[in-house]
C-alpha cells in the first residue's frame, strides 16, 4: 500500500480516512475535517455521560486484550481527591503491528483529541502519550500536534475555553517491547526500569505515581471521537457478526502477501475475503501456509482456520487464535515454520525483562532449542522439552510475555509438527556418558 492512499472498496474507513492526506496533520487541516468537534461536545457533557456513550457503543480495547473501554473508564472513581492519569499506550512494538504508527503519522491531532476526551471522561487532568522509541516520524508529528493544540488553547490550563485543565505530554520510550505492557509502561514513565508490576493493585487503584490510572491504546482513544460524534448506535451497527464486537478495526498486514499495508474493516469481516480480496492474495506462484492474525503473541492459524475466521474478538478465538493487536502476518509455502517460530522466540528472548524465572530462562532456552532444530541438530526429545517448557511459561509469571513466547511454539508444534519432524528425522539424544560407554 503506497500513498496517496487508495482504500479498497470493501474497507470502511473511519479512523484511516485521512491516511495519506498530509493536510490532516496540521491543526488547520484537522479542524477543517471536523477535528476537535468531538472534544468540544465532550467538554460540554458530564464525564459519566461520555463513559456511558462509550460503554453503549461496545468499544473494546484495540491494543490486544479487548477489554471493554467504557467499563475500564468507569473504574475511575471521580472526586476521590487524588490526581487521575490517562496513559496512551503508543509503544506499538508487537511484531507485525503498525496501525498506531499510521494513525499517529497521518492524524496526530486525532490522538490529541482522543486523549483529551479520555482524560476528561476519567477525571484526569494529565494524559501521557508513551510513544515507541523507534517511532521517530510519528514522534515528530505528535510533538507538532501537541504544540499546535497548546498554542490554540485546545488543551492546557483552559481547554477550549471551558476552564477545564487537560495537559497532554508526549514521552518517548527507550526501545523496549515490554514497555508496552501497561504496568511496565508506568514504571518507565516514572523513570524506573520498565519492569511489569505485580497485579493487584490494578492501575485503576494504584497506577502511575501510585494514583488511579487508565491505559488505553492509540486506536481505542481515537475511536472515541466518531463514537461521540455519531452516537453509540451508529458504532454498534458497524458489525457484521455479533454485538460483542462492534465498530471498525485497523489491521496491519505483512509477510508473504500481495498487498501488505494498513486496512480498516468492520468487525466480523470474513478473513478469507480480507486475505484474498482486500489484500490481494498470495504472491505469484505461492500458496498461503499459515497466518498469525493478531501479532506474534497469538496462536498461529492454519489456512483452514484462517479462512473460516470472522475478523472480530470471538471469531478468531473460535478458530484457534485471537484478534490481538490486528497485526496480520502471512506466511507462505516458501517459508520454514520452524525458522519463523524460532525467530519469534528469539524476539521474546531478547525482550524479556528478566524478572520472572520462567520467562528469563524459558524464552532463551526455547530459542536455543528451536534454532538447533532449525539448523538440523534437533532430537525427538526436543519437542517434548519445548512443550514442557511452554507449559512452565504459561500462566505463572507477572506479565504475559512468557505466555506470548509459548503460544506460537505450542500452536506451531501442534499444527505444523510435520515440519519439525522432517528436520529432526528421528534423531534421538545421546548423552555424552552414553556415547562414551
Amino acid at each position, binding site marked *: 500500500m503506497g500513498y496517496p492512499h487508495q482504500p479498497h472498496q470493501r474497507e470502511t474507513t473511519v479512523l484511516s480516512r485521512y491516511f495519506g492526506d498530509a493536510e490532516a496533520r496540521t491543526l488547520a487541516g484537522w479542524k477543517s475535517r471536523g477535528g476537535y468537534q468531538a472534544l468540544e461536545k465532550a467538554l460540554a457533557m458530564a464525564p459519566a455521560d461520555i463513559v456511558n456513550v462509550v460503554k453503549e457503543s461496545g468499544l473494546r480495547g484495540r491494543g490486544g486484550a479487548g477489554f471493554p473501554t467504557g467499563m475500564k473508564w468507569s473504574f475511575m472513581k471521580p472526586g476521590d481527591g487524588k490526581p487521575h492519569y490517562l496513559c496512551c499506550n503508543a509503544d506499538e512494538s508487537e511484531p507485525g503491528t503498525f496501525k498506531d504508527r499510521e494513525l499517529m503519522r497521518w492524524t496526530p491531532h486525532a490522538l490529541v483529541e482522543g486523549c483529551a476526551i479520555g482524560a476528561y471522561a476519567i477525571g484526569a487532568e494529565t494524559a501521557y502519550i508513551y510513544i515507541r522509541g523507534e517511532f521517530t516520524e510519528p514522534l515528530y508529528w505528535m510533538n507538532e500536534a501537541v504544540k499546535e493544540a497548546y498554542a490554540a488553547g485546545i488543551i492546557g490550563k483552559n481547554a477550549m475555553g471551558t476552564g477545564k485543565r487537560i495537559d497532554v505530554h508526549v514521552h518517548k520510550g527507550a526501545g*523496549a517491547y*515490554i514497555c508496552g505492557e501497561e504496568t511496565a509502561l508506568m514504571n518507565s514513565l516514572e523513570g524506573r*526500569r520498565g519492569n511489569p508490576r*505485580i497485579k493487584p493493585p490494578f492501575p485503576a487503584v494504584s497506577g502511575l505515581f501510585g494514583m488511579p490510572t487508565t491505559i488505553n491504546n492509540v486506536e481505542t482513544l481515537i475511536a472515541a471521537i466518531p463514537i461521540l460524534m455519531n452516537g453509540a448506535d451508529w458504532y454498534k451497527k458497524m458489525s457484521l457478526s455479533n454485538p460483542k464486537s462492534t465498530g471498525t478495526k485497523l489491521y496491519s498486514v505483512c509477510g508473504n502477501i500481495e498487498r501488505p499495508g494498513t486496512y480498516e474493516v468492520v468487525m466480523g469481516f470474513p478473513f478469507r475475503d480480507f486475505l484474498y480480496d482486500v489484500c490481494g492474495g498470495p504472491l505469484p506462484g505461492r500458496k498461503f501456509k499459515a497466518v498469525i492474525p493478531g501479532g506474534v503473541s497469538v496462536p498461529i492459524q492454519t489456512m483452514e482456520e484462517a479462512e473460516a475466521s470472522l475478523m472480530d474478538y470471538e471469531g478468531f478465538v473460535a478458530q484457534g487464535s485471537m484478534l490481538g493487536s490486528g497485526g496480520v502476518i502471512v506466511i507462505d509455502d516458501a517459508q520454514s515454520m520452524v525458522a519463523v517460530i524460532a525467530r519469534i522466540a528469539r524476539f521474546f*528472548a*531478547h*525482550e*524479556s*525483562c*528478566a*524478572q*520472572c*524465572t*520462567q520467562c*528469563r*530462562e*524459558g*524464552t*532463551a*532456552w526455547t530459542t*536455543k*532449542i528451536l534454532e*538447533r532444530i532449525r539448523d538440523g541438530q534437533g532430537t525427538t*526429545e526436543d519437542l517434548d*522439552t519445548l512443550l*514442557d*517448557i511452554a*507449559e*512452565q511459561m504459561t*500462566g*505463572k*509469571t*507477572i506479565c504475559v510475555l512468557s505466555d506470548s513466547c509459548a503460544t506460537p511454539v505450542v500452536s506451531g508444534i501442534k499444527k505444523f509438527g510435520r515440519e519439525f519432524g522432517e528436520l529432526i528425522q528421528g534423531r534421538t*539424544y545421546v548423552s555424552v556418558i552414553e556415547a562414551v560407554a
Partner: protein
Amino acid sequence: MTAPVETKMITLTIEGRQVTVPEGTTILEAAKQVGVLIPHYCYHPGLPVAGVCRMCLVDVEKAPKLAPSCATTVAEGQVVTVHNEKSLEARKGVLEMLLINHPLDCPICDQSGECELQDYTYQEGREDSRYREPKRFNPAEDFGGDVVYVPNRCILCTRCVRFMDDLAHDPVLNVSERGDRALIGKFDGKDLTHPWAANVVDLCPVGALLSKDFLNKARAWELDRTASICPNCTQGCNVMMETRENQLVRMRPRPNEYVNAFFMCDYGRLNYRWMNEKDRVEQPMVRQGGALAPTSWERGIAAAAAVLKGKRVFVAASPMLSNEALFLLAQLMAAGSFRVTEGDEAPLPGIDDLALRRERAANVNGAETLGFTKTRDLLGGLGQGDVLLVAGEDLAGIDAGVLAKASAIVVIGSVLPAATNAAVVLPIANFAEEEGTVTNLRGRVQRFSQARQAPGEARPSWLVLGDLLGAMGKQSSFFLPSDVFARLASTNKAFAGLSYDTLGFKGLPLATAQASGPKAPLAMGAR
C-alpha cells in the same frame, strides 16, 4: 495514646491446617505460622516484596492460576495447597530453569551447604537437566567493600538490589541487561562501600555474592554456630558467631526485630579477629622475686585477695565485660571507671534506630548502670596508695608514672597489659569465650554465649570474680552465670524482674529503659 486500631483477623486453611492471621498477611507468612515453609528466593521478610522468582507458587482453591504466595494476601476461607502436584510441578520447573545457566560448581562454592538453590533442588527438583546448550558465562566482578559477585551463579532474585535501594538508601546495584543476559550491575563509579553493604552477602540465597573475608576459608558444614551478640558497638546486634576448629571465622546477623532486624554493619561483622587473639595469658601468675611466675588458681586467687583485702580498690574496667563481671567487680571497688574507643556513627537508614554506634564496645550502658564512670582519663580517679584492679583493660597509652600511684596492681584479663608491674595476674576468657549478658544503648539486656574455648587455664570472668569475692570473705556461691545474674536482678532495681529464662535469645529491656515496639515488622508490605 491513641486506641489501637482493631485488626481484622482472617482464618484460612494451609496444607489442611487452619490458621488465623491479621488481614493483609501474605500466604507465605501465614504458612510459616503453621510450620509450612513455602520455598522461595526473592522474598525476604526484611525487604519489599518483588514477586519475581515465581518459586513460591501455591495452589489456591478456586483460583484459575497458581498464586505467588509472597505477594498474595490471605482471604477468609481460602484453602491453600503447597505440596500438590500442580504447584510441585511449577516449582520443579522454576528450579530446572534456575539451574540451566547455573554452574554445578557446588564443590568449590562458598555457599554450598547453606545454599537455598541446593536445598530446594534436593528437596523438590528434577534429578537431571534437559538443557543441552552451552551455559551463559560472565566473569566474576569485585563489587567493592567486602563483596565479590559471581554472575554465573546469580538467580536474579534482586534481594541485593532492594537492600541497597530501600534499606541502605544507596542505590549502587541494578539489574543490567534483559532476558537471560541479565545480571546484577553496579552503577558507574559506585561501589559497595556503604557501611552496611555486606548484608547483601547474607541476603543472597545462592553463591553469587560472596564475602571476600570468608572466601574459601571454610565449608558451611564445618562451622559451629553460636547465638551471640556483636561486641563491637553499643547497638548490640544479634549475631551468629561461626567457628571452625575453635577459631572464629565469620559473624553473621541473627534476626531480632527489636534490635537489628535482619542485619549487621560491616564494621561489626568483620571485626572478629581480636576474639581469636594469640598473645594470651594462659595461667594465673604471681610476682616472685621481681618476676611473674605461674601458679595454681587457688594460690592466684588467694594472692589477689591478700593484695586487695583492707585496701581502697580502684577498678579500671572494660566496657567489653559482661553485666555479671561488672556487677561482681563493683562489689570489690571503692571507685571504678572505664573508657571507650570511638568512631563515626553509621546508620542503616531503612530501619529506625539502627546504626553502627559511635561507642565501640558492647556494654557501655551496662557499665554505667552498674556504677562505673565513663571517662577519657582512665586512671584519673586513682588515689595515691590505692590498689589498682585492672579488669579486661589493656592500659594502652597509659603513662607508667600514673600507674606508680598505685600501691599494688592486680590484673584480671585475657592479655597482659604492657608496662605494668602487676602483683597478681588472673587470666580470663574474652567475649567469645564465655557466657553472660550485655546491655545495649537503649537498655536492652541480651545474652551472649560461648563460641570458642578459652586458652590454657583461663576462666570465665564471672567465675574468677566470684571466687575472688569468696576468698575475700564476701558471700559468693555462683555455679553458673545465671546465678550471678539472678543475684544482680534481686539487688539492682534496673535489672529487677529479669532472668536468663525470660531474656531468652532476643533479650528484654531494663526496668528503667523506655519501652519501644519492634522497629522492623516481620514482613514489610509490597512497595
